[in-house]
């Protein structure tokens, strides 16, 4: 029992490997850190008894180290095996046995453990093997390689060059730098990982203008959707004279199918708070608000804790660290209205009113909360700022493309093998994200396209997946970056259905204030549902296009202006599907509906 007290158990925030949650990481001095996924109670018990107690790895739950070694410097203690090929079935067990047999033959079976891994982050590379503790990884391993694997790599600690997997990691973690690493409820832990270093430096050594300059140099653009340059926004808010100014963190994350803001708030609340403090310092704000969805109770709790802890230490409140500058932060809860993510509606909501948007200008940076200059930034935008201030604008600007700098977090879900958060430099292609990081299609049904930007976005069809992701490229394709949701759709997803789904979302969420959005959305939805029932008429598509145009031009706020995007985008790339419904009539529609309800492949039906 005494031993129990000697092993500290730490809680960390979300790692981002949504497909394998819940996760447990075991750190042993002098041994590699092992990350386990899909840990239920049984597995947790096994981790304690087997791994912690006897130093033995647990079969089938390990998510291999994403750090890939190039040399073997000490004795190999374990071999992870995973068949990463797409459709050739699972050879993992067979290889595990073969390696074990080979080890036994050389008298090494007792010193080297062979286990199957849950996921090594490598896909379509055949049988993959990772040696621990070095992290040396071999791919496309064949049966005949096993003897050399044991005699050369295990016995002589030599690397087999022809098998070595050395592709660089596609991910670059800036926003997610501490997610899954720090205890989100401990300020001390955050401080140990350099939190608030940038803030303290800015406060004691820099002027607000310098901070704004740094952010401008970084090229950071708002990650909440529109991509407005953050430094410019701060400058615009700094300029006007006012007795009070405000900063707001937009943590409404209304986009269905997106969870990056949630993960950052839960995983590293101090990064977001520090970002908010830097924003406040830069524009001269006296108070900041986190506008968080009530549906995210854990995020609310952790941000509140972060606020309380920093206030206790004098990092927040009156006369911060004796600098003479005062700033405080508080939480305001959202209440389940998507439109409240829009800036003017969000302000109305914080003021305690219903979240109706107002025409802009005046922009919030001039006339925002209670009529005072206000800067509203997204969670991810703010979380990137401390890193930028600490490392310099140039360091951030080195990532990404000419006009879209830095990194972006995407929440990849839908019909994809491993749904997860990824953070990649701007300019990475959609294909690299979906196939290279997330493992490609689920259930071997070919991917039809990837929807980005939620209900304000559009679909990128399969042939365009090589497009590098930048704000400009996406809007050229009729989609948007949005907040970073990526929904993978496969050939069994019907575009008419999906377009209607997104539109229904916007119709339900319309605040009803302006007619183009209220009436236009409703009428268009009627048309789409009519088509989906097989009762569409030839002129319907033209009518839909006309309503789209009217909504885009005449709606009051971003919700109505962008609601037609998914519809237009589906029409642009998948018009045949709409036509098939119109021409096929009700029997066609019924046939497809039935097939979908039964989970059958649509290809076999049509």
């Amino acid at each position: 029992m005494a031993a129990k007290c000697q092993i500290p158990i730490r809680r960390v925030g979300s790692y981002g490997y949504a497909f394998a949650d819940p996760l447990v990481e075991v750190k042993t001095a002098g041994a590699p850190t092992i990350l386990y996924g899909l840990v239920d109670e049984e597995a947790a018990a096994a981790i304690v008894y087997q791994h912690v107690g006897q130093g033995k790895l647990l079969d089938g739950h390990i998510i291999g180290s994403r750090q890939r070694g190039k040399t073997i410097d000490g004795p190999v203690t374990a071999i992870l095996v995973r068949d990463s090929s797409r459709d050739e079935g699972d050879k993992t067990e067979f290889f595990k046995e073969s390696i074990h047999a080979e080890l036994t033959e050389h008298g090494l079976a007792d010193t080297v453990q062979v286990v199957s891994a849950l996921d090594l982050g490598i896909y379509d590379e055949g049988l993959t093997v990772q040696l621990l503790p070095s992290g040396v990884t071999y791919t496309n391993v064949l049966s005949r390689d096993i003897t050399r694997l044991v005699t050369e790599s295990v016995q002589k600690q030599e690397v087999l060059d022809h098998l070595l997997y050395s592709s660089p990691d596609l991910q670059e973690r800036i926003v997610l730098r501490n997610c899954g690493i720090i205890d989100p409820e401990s300020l001390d832990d955050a401080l140990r990982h350099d939190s608030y270093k940038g803030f303290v430096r800015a406060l004691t050594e820099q002027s607000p203008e310098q901070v704004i300059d740094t952010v401008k140099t970084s090229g950071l653009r708002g990650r909440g959707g529109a991509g407005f340059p953050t430094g410019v926004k701060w400058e615009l808010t700094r300029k006007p004279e006012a007795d009070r100014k405000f900063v707001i963190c937009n943590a409404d994350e209304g986009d269905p199918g997106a969870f990056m803001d949630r993960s950052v708030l839960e995983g590293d609340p101090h990064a977001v708070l520090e970002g908010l403090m830097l924003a406040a310092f830069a524009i001269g704000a006296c108070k900041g608000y986190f506008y968080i969805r009530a549906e995210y109770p854990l995020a609310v709790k952790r941000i509140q804790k972060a606020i309380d802890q920093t206030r206790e230490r004098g990092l927040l409140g009156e006369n911060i660290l004796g600098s003479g500058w005062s700033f405080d932060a508080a939480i305001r809860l959202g209440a389940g209205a998507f439109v409240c993510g829009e800036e003017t509606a969000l302000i109305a909501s914080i003021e305690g009113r219903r979240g109706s948007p107002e025409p802009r200008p005046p922009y919030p940076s001039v006339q925002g909360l209670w009529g005072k200059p206000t800067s509203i930034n997204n969670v991810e935008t703010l979380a990137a700022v401390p890193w930028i201030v600490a490392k310099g604008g140039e360091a951030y600007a080195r990532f990404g493309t000419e006009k879209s700098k830095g990194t972006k977090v995407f929440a990849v879900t839908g019909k994809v093998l491993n749904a997860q958060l990824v953070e990649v430099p701007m300019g990475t292609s959609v294909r690299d994200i979906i196939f290279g990081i997330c493992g490609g299609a689920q259930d071997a049904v070919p991917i039809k396209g990837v929807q980005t930007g939620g209900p304000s976005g559009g679909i990128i069809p399969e042939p365009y997946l090589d497009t590098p992701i930048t704000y400009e490229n996406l809007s050229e394709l009729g989609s948007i970056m949005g907040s970073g949701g990526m929904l993978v759709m496969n050939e069994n997803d019907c575009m008419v259905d999906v377009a209607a789904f997104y539109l229904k979302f916007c119709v339900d969420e319309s605040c009803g204030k302006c007619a183009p959005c209220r009436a236009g959305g409703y009428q268009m939805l009627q048309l789409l549902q009519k088509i989906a029932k097989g009762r569409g008429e030839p002129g319907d598509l033209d009518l839909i296009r006309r309503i789209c145009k009217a909504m885009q031009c005449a709606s009051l706020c971003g919700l109505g202006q962008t609601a037609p995007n998914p519809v237009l985008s589906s029409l642009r790339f998948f018009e045949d599907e709409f036509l098939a419904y119109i021409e096929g009539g009700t029997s066609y529609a019924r046939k497809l509906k039935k097939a979908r309800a039964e989970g059958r492949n649509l290809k076999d039906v049509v």
Partner: protein
Amino acid sequence: MNNTVLPPLRDLEPEVQQEIDECVERWSDQEGNLIMILHEIQNHHGYVPREASLLLAEKTGVPLARIYEVLTFYHYFRLVPQGKHQITVCNGTACYLKGSARLLSELENRLEIKEGETTDDRLFHLETVRCIGCCGMAPAVVVDGTTVGKVATTDIAGIIEKIHIQEETNE
């Protein structure tokens, strides 16, 4: 929500009156506090009783109409008491693609109610929500505040059964 019949007015118990007093007091020096006060009331009662809104209007001087304007605008606020156990089906895009509609209709069939309704014995309340941010576990269902991920239609019976058993053993 709009066509639900509101329960008849009752006199508020003194404790409830006091609790609302305290809540108003706590938020009194905060600008734009109305929504936060309503959140607190709902957290406590599971819904915002009409009596509470009346009292709130009296205490804060905010017209009742404005309070209801807010209450009816936001999906999160409820005007009538809910069932003892909440089952919420995520209808966000990821969950939708992975078949949340099938889960919902299975629940509707088994509980014999529609989405947004409460069973006659007030044991279950069924509703949908737009993405709870667990899209990696789609399709997801929230049962009494606990998220269950990767739910299959065949799991539904078990989820309901578990609550029934829980109820019986508690009695």
